[in-house]
């Protein structure tokens, strides 16, 4: 950002915060309509929240960083390129894999097939790339969706750097050359590049391009050394990921062993009681096992080495079981389960260590946050080097946004950046601003309900003179919009972004509730893979019915309000102000109409990455001529 632009942005940022503080102080101090607190308080709370969001946006833009061209990639780096797939069609995955294979910088390409499809294995062999799928050690274990898929691949590969691509993200040949140079700085853990979608028309009816995020916002976060890792189109340093996994593992190892021993004792006590009724001869086995657990707890208190404690426990259990051979069938399964949960090597899981965060369905953000908390750095490289596919129908888009939001709110409730040790204040704010943006659903509800209540029932959500209100509100509102536009730096889709931020209020509310339920009630959050093609039932107004209901309510209440003003039942100026408010709400919500009617990209959308010549022969085995293997 040029110096003049930066001065302007900072000036606007100061104005936004100043005007906002004046306005919100006035609102809280003398305008809350306490006799209608049920609408007045949610409204003023929503406005306070919006001020908070504007302030966080101002902080983000304060330090926006436009990086100079990156240094050239040093030769001799070893790189693994991972293409993560679950249920995408072979043609799509192969196109990405061939483009990845053909990248200029020397590397190894791997298809990580979480769907374990045999056709993929042979196709990978034919095009000369590696193929990794989960082994039998994952059977019956938690799989952790994409994070588990990547962790599995990390445990089987050795490159110093790992590039991660979603199945539909086709890289340009220069991708690695453009980003590897940043890793000359040893503190850089990952480099993120933009996600750009070629199948989105200019009017972008589903709000897919996110030019504001993959531009000024990421640059702003980068300025505070808090660029986000977004799960694809990024390169990560293996040592950073492993250091993170190791630190998390050892930090919790003793605590994990303690709690597993406690749970194990409880299970053995239950088994002991059950055997008393069913098979008394087997009871000594469980008594010896409980004695072994007691010994293990003593050793743990003494600070003995965990691997020795758990190995000795295993040997003791084994000796106890052998002492009464006829009891084996009754006790061994339970003893096994106790041992697996206690073992320091986490034998109850497929891997001992999970470098990518597995506690949330937005593993990318959580992993980046913990890397930052460890002191690792990050880079946002603002250059489109990968071309992908965006959702082509409103249903898929909503499902994708819900997953992002629910996972993010899961991290917000479970691993809040305000309390995570190691982050700088600015990094905390950067993560907080993204997480709290999803609370906008509740604010939007207030902004829809308040004018309706006034127009229909004549209940004032605030008590103030319209003139004073305008004098205090307009400077705040206008400076916010100005900052948004100036800091947006010409990004397309700024208005579209505001529309979706407001219109997706049902999704944000549902996702916040899902995230909270996952953390506080232990409900499972599903990682739904974004469909890469148009879904038959994905279009239509039924997917946005809540927004349509809100629009209908706004229109009807406007009619009632006009009638009330015409008959003198309602005051004119407050009614006019409220109608303007309704118009703004409708202008924001109307985006869902175009989205519901969207039929996918037209012929004018052309894939910038040509289909590889060899693709048809790989897809059609009868014309197969396998190239020499690269591995």
């Amino acid at each position, binding site marked *: 950002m040029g110096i003049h632009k930066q001065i302007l942005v900072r000036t606007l940022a100061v104005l936004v915060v100043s005007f906002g503080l004046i306005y919100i102080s006035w609102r809280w101090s003398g305008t809350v309509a306490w006799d209608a607190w049920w609408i007045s308080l949610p409204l003023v709370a929503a406005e306070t929240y919006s001020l908070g969001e504007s302030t966080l946006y101002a902080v983000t833009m304060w330090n926006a960083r436009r990086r100079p061209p990156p240094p050239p990639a040093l030769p001799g780096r070893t790189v693994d390129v991972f293409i993560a797939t679950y249920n995408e069609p072979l043609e799509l995955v192969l196109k990405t894999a061939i483009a990845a294979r053909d990248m200029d910088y020397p590397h190894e390409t791997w298809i990580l097939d979480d769907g374990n499809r045999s056709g993929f294995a042979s196709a990978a062999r034919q095009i000369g790339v590696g193929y990794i799928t989960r082994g039998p*050690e994952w059977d019956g274990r938690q799989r952790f969706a994409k994070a588990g898929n990547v962790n599995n691949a990390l*445990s*089987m*590969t*050795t*490159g110093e750097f790992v590039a991660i691509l979603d199945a539909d993200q086709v890289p340009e040949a220069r991708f690695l050359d453009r980003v590897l140079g940043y890793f000359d700085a*040893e*503190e850089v853990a990952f480099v993120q590049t933009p996600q750009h979608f070629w199948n989105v028309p200019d009017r972008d009816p589903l709000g897919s391009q996110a030019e504001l995020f993959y531009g000024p916002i990421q640059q702003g976060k980068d300025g505070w050394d808090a660029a986000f890792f977004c799960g694809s189109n990024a390169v990560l340093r*293996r*040592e*950073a990921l*492993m*250091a993170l*996994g*190791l*630190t998390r*593992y*050892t930090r919790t*190892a*003793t605590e994990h062993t303690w709690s597993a021993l406690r749970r194990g004792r409880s299970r053995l006590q239950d088994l002991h009681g059950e055997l008393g009724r069913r098979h008394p001869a087997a009871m000594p086995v469980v008594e010896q096992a409980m004695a072994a657990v007691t010994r293990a707890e003593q*050793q743990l*208190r*003494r*600070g*003995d*080495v*965990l*691997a*020795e*404690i*758990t*190995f*000795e426990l*295993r*040997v003791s*259990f*084994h*000796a106890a*079981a052998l002492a009464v051979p006829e009891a*084996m069938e009754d006790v*061994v*399964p339970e*003893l*096994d389960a106790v*041992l*697996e949960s206690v*073992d*320091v*090597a*986490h*034998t109850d899981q497929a*891997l*001992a*260590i999970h*470098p990518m965060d597995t506690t949330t369905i937005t593993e990318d953000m959580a992993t980046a946050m913990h890397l930052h908390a*460890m*002191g*690792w750095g990050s880079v946002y490289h603002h250059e489109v080097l990968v071309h992908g596919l965006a959702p082509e129908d409103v249903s898929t888009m909503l499902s994708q946004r819900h997953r992002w939001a629910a996972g993010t709110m899961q991290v917000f409730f479970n691993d809040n950046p305000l309390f995570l*040790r*190691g982050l700088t204040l600015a990094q905390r704010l950067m993560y907080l601003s993204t997480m709290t943006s999803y609370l906008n659903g509740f604010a939007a509800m207030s902004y829809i309900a308040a004018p309706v209540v006034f127009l229909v029932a004549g209940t004032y959500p605030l008590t103030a003179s319209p003139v004073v209100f305008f004098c205090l509100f307009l400077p705040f509102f206008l400076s916010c919009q100005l900052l948004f536009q100036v800091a947006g730096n010409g990004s397309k889709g700024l208005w579209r972004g505001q529309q979706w931020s407001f219109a997706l209020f049902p999704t944000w509310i549902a996702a916040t509730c899902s995230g909270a339920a996952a953390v506080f009630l232990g409900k499972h959050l599903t990682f739904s893979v974004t469909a890469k093609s148009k879904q038959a039932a994905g279009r239509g107004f039924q997917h946005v019915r809540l927004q349509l209901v809100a629009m209908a309510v706004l229109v009807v209440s406007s009619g009632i309000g006009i009638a009330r003003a015409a008959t003198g039942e309602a005051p004119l100026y407050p009614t006019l102000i409220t109608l303007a408010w309704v118009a703004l709400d409708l202008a924001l919500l109307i985006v869902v109409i175009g989205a519901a009617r969207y039929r996918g990209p037209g012929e004018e959308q052309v894939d910038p990455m040509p289909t590889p010549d060899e693709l048809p022969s790989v897809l059609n085995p009868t014309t197969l001529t396998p190239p020499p293997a690269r591995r």
Partner: protein
Amino acid sequence: MSTLSRVSNTLSCIDLTVTGALDATTVLGIRQESAKAATDGPILVLLDVAAVTTVGASGVVGLLEVLHLLRARGGDLRLFGSSAALETTRLQAHLGQVTRIYGTREEAVDGGLGPGRARHLAPGFRWHRLFPRRRRTLGWS
């Protein structure tokens, strides 16, 4: 299959040695050899780390994955040998909490069944520990 039914007080041993860098590449080799050795039953892998010259987080994670693999099959991994690189790295703090590096092969064979030795005493409560200076970890030295 039950891992308990496969554990034994007298595990058969194989000896492996790691030389030079303890990193992702070397531990992948150790893992493959360990997996091969463990196909016929529980096995105790004795890994000589005396000749290790550099240590990376990938190497330590890889070792823990080898431990995981062997334990899941009723076996074990024991490290032995004196390595200045391993002793001076900050990773030792992580590794030492989980597993021990024995001085000699004989001690490693004896392993968890020998008399227990205190790793450290649990620290007493101190008010000043509630407000420690933040320590940042930029990788591993």
